[in-house]
């Protein structure tokens, strides 16, 4: 794994951990808070319901007060006993006036209606008639029910005017009267107003309400299906109810005498509006922090790793170019002090290596060059070859074919060794030179020297370094022929390598050989050592230089030469 991604992963995971802790803290706070909120909301409802029922009670009380009122008693008495219609009318007028004052005093009491035993209907109202068509309701079954209750109050609702609750009561004479007049009072109570006064928050928060009286739905506000909610909330004081796919916090409150039952619903959204707003802001801050952190982290990491990556690239280039190009390292922008130091040190090192290599190479080159040049300068090539040419023709003229052949072969070898243009030569060219070399040696040693050459013909055009074969053959001749004094057999074999792209060159002789432990490699001839050095310089570890030798069994030298690159052309 790259250091950059490891860094990034580490920082991101720690960031996510912090984020998780934050979120879980927030969630638990929210839980706690919502509990408190629910409690306080339902507390409010309880107190509201308390004052609401007080208002109801006071209304009920009011109706009793009205009945016990002297004017009411007077009216009832006149109604029952007096034959004087004027007196009856006057007492009724007085009562009605009195009643209308009640409606003025009590803000929830909209109207009071009186129905006498003859079925006449009178209303007490200071304003103009505010409620219309109540006649049918008032004269309907409610009247009979009220009369049947014999002075007990009756709460009832009015379908066509749902904002009104009606409190009705039969009024009678106080005292021991055998006959009682049948008059009934209807109090019209504005329930909405009553609710508003006792629960001022009803207008805000989208509060929804249902009110039941003795199991009968008396009032509902913003609720379509009150029965459903009542069923849901059975025996439960509060819970979350879903209406139209929206969660609502619902509370159920029953009065102590179990007659009234209230349902309050607040959309959770409304309740937690502020909470949600705060949450949103917090999440936004989280996101912003995340982005800022990520950018910062990535940039920081890049600042650390990219100079390292750059440096490794530079190293690779330098490695590939063999220190040839000492490109000035360009320091990445905004590099930190440590990186700058790293670059500086690396640059210093490269320079040092380069200087060393150059120094060595130049020394070597100048040495070789001067050697070669001094040789060339000492002998003018034109003079040399003209002389050899003359020598050749002299030999031919004097019928000395061996000498002629030697001169010719020697000339070719000389020409090749003085050639400094191309360090490589084709296998074929090298074989021709080898044959020249053998020609000379054959003339010297006659039958004592025998050789075979075995080269795969596909390899003829491949290139190998100059003087690869000759030092090997020279070495073989030196050891096996000049020392032993008997016949020397040399095999030169050049085959394609089976393992790598290149060729194996084998030179075998039947010389004395040496045992493995103190092989020739310890003290190889100058030519052989030179060749070994040259090959390892040219091919590095790819090349191969093996000496297999056993005492009395001859020697085999194997070298591997990879195909030169330009060869494919």
């Amino acid at each position: 794994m790259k250091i950059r991604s490891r860094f990034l992963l580490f920082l991101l995971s720690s960031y996510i951990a912090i984020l998780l802790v934050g979120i879980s803290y927030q969630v638990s706070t929210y839980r706690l808070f919502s509990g408190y909120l629910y409690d306080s909301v339902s507390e409010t409802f309880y107190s509201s319901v308390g004052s609401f029922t007080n208002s109801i009670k006071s209304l009920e009380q009011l109706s009793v007060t009205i009945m016990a009122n002297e004017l009411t008693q007077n009216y009832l008495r006149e109604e029952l006993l007096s034959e004087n219609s004027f007196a009856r009318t006057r007492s009724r007028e007085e009562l009605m006036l009195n009643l209308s004052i009640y409606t003025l005093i009590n803000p929830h009491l909209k109207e009071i209606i009186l129905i006498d035993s003859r079925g006449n209907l009178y209303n007490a109202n200071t304003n103009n008639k505010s409620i219309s068509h109540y006649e049918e309701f008032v004269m309907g079954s409610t009247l009979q029910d009220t009369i049947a209750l014999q002075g007990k109050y009756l709460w009832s609702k009015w379908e066509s005017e749902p904002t009104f609750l009606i409190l009705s009561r039969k009024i009678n004479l106080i005292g021991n009267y055998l006959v009682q007049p049948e008059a009934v009072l209807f109090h019209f109570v504005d329930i909405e107003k009553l609710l508003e006064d006792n629960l001022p928050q009803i207008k805000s928060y989208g509060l929804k309400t249902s009110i039941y009286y003795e199991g009968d739905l008396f009032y509902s506000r913003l609720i379509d299906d009150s029965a459903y909610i009542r069923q849901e909330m059975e025996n439960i004081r509060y819970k979350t109810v879903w209406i139209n796919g929206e969660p609502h916090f619902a509370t159920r409150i029953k009065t102590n005498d179990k007659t009234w039952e209230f349902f309050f619903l607040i959309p959770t959204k409304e309740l937690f509006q502020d909470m949600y707003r705060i949450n949103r802001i917090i999440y936004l801050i989280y996101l912003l922090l995340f982005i800022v952190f990520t950018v910062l982290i990535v940039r920081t990491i890049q600042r650390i790793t990219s100079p390292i990556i750059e440096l490794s690239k530079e190293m690779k280039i330098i490695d590939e170019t063999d220190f040839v190009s000492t490109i000035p390292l360009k320091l990445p922008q905004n590099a930190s002090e440590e990186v700058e130091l790293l670059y500086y040190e690396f640059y210093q090192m490269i320079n040092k290596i380069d200087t060393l290599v150059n120094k060595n190479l130049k020394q070597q080159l100048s040495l070789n060059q001067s050697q070669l040049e001094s040789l060339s300068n000492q002998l003018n090539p034109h003079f040399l070859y003209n002389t050899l040419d003359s020598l050749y023709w002299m030999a031919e003229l004097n019928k000395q074919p061996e000498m002629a052949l030697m001169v010719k072969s020697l000339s070719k070898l000389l020409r090749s060794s003085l050639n400094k243009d191309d360090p490589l030569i084709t296998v074929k060219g090298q074989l021709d030179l080898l044959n020249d070399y053998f020609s000379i040696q054959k003339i010297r040693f006659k039958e004592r020297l025998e050789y075979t050459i075995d080269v795969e013909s596909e390899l003829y055009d491949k290139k190998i370094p100059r003087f690869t074969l000759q030092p090997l053959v020279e070495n073989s001749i030196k050891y096996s022929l000049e020392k032993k004094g008997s016949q020397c057999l040399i095999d030169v074999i050049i085959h394609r390598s089976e393992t790598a792209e290149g060729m194996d060159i084998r030179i075998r002789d039947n010389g004395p050989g040496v045992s493995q432990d103190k092989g020739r490699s310890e003290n190889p001839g100058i030519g052989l050592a030179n060749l070994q050095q040259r090959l390892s310089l040219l091919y590095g570890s790819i090349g191969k230089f093996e000496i297999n030798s056993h005492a009395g069994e001859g020697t085999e030298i194997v070298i591997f030469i990879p195909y030169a690159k330009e060869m494919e052309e």
Partner: protein
Amino acid sequence: MIQVLLVDDEEFSQKGMENLVPWEQWNCEIAAVASNGVEALEIINSQKIDLVFTDIKMPEMDGLELIREVNNINSGIDFVIITGYGEFEYAQKALRYGVRNYLLKPVGISEIEETLLKLTRNRIPDLEVQESPESCEIDIESFVEEIMVSVTQKNWNKISEILLAFIKDISSRNCSLEQTRIHAINLLSLLIKNEVIYSNEKTLLLAGEIGSADNQSVIYNILKDQIMMTQNQGERSFSKKMNPHVQKVLIYLIKHYKDKNLTLKWLSENIAYVKSDYLGKLFLSETGKTFAQYLAEFRIARAVEYQKQNPAIPVYDLAKLCGYRDNVSYFIQQYKKITGMTPAEFASSSVVNT
């Protein structure tokens, strides 16, 4: 006779070249010898010279200057540069002056002869269309024996000499190119028989190359390279040897393609002594072509060659020369199939080239 001028300031080189190279065998004659460029120019201006061997580094006027001067006067003279210098810029300059032969000192006799072989082929009258003269018969066996001796001694110089002698022998008898090829093929088959050249799939190509060589120099080089190359290869490289029946058939085909009745059946009965369908299969697997196909291609290649030498040759004669004795229309049909042209079309197009 080709008039040769030698230009060299070295006395021994001059003398040796003049006396030891068998000039007359190459239809050449030393017209004059000069020791510098000025002298040489005078000679060229005063007498007819066809071929000049010149050194480069000489007093007064060097070889390259001489060539430039002569090219200014008249062309038609071939130059061979002999020099101790192998430097690139010299060779380049020489090439610019149209010199293609560049020999490095010391130059051996056989190298000069090889150059002569290459240069004089245009000047030797050869390639008579008629059947070979009786005189054109040489003792190939003796050449083969000499080669075998040299090979065992690994005397490569000697092999060049023997091959040159072989070519000279052929030339001296006024043999046609066709005859030269047949002699070369015979030599090759004897060398194969004596295992101087190993028989393998490449030998076939070699026989084909000799069969289509258009001068003696090419034939010489093929033989020489092949002998050298085989000697540089151990026997182990020759896993696949060419089938001897096919080899026999092939050599016969190259020699006798003019025979009208050259059929696989006849060859199988009289040359290879195997059944004809077996021979056919062998031939196909060795050459990649059926016998009929190979024969047709070989014959048409010969026809093309005859036409190159003599564009005016009548189609009837051409067909006859290539073994289509009585069937000219079949010949034209085959010709067109292989070359994409009719003989007449080819003749008109090749006039320009020659």
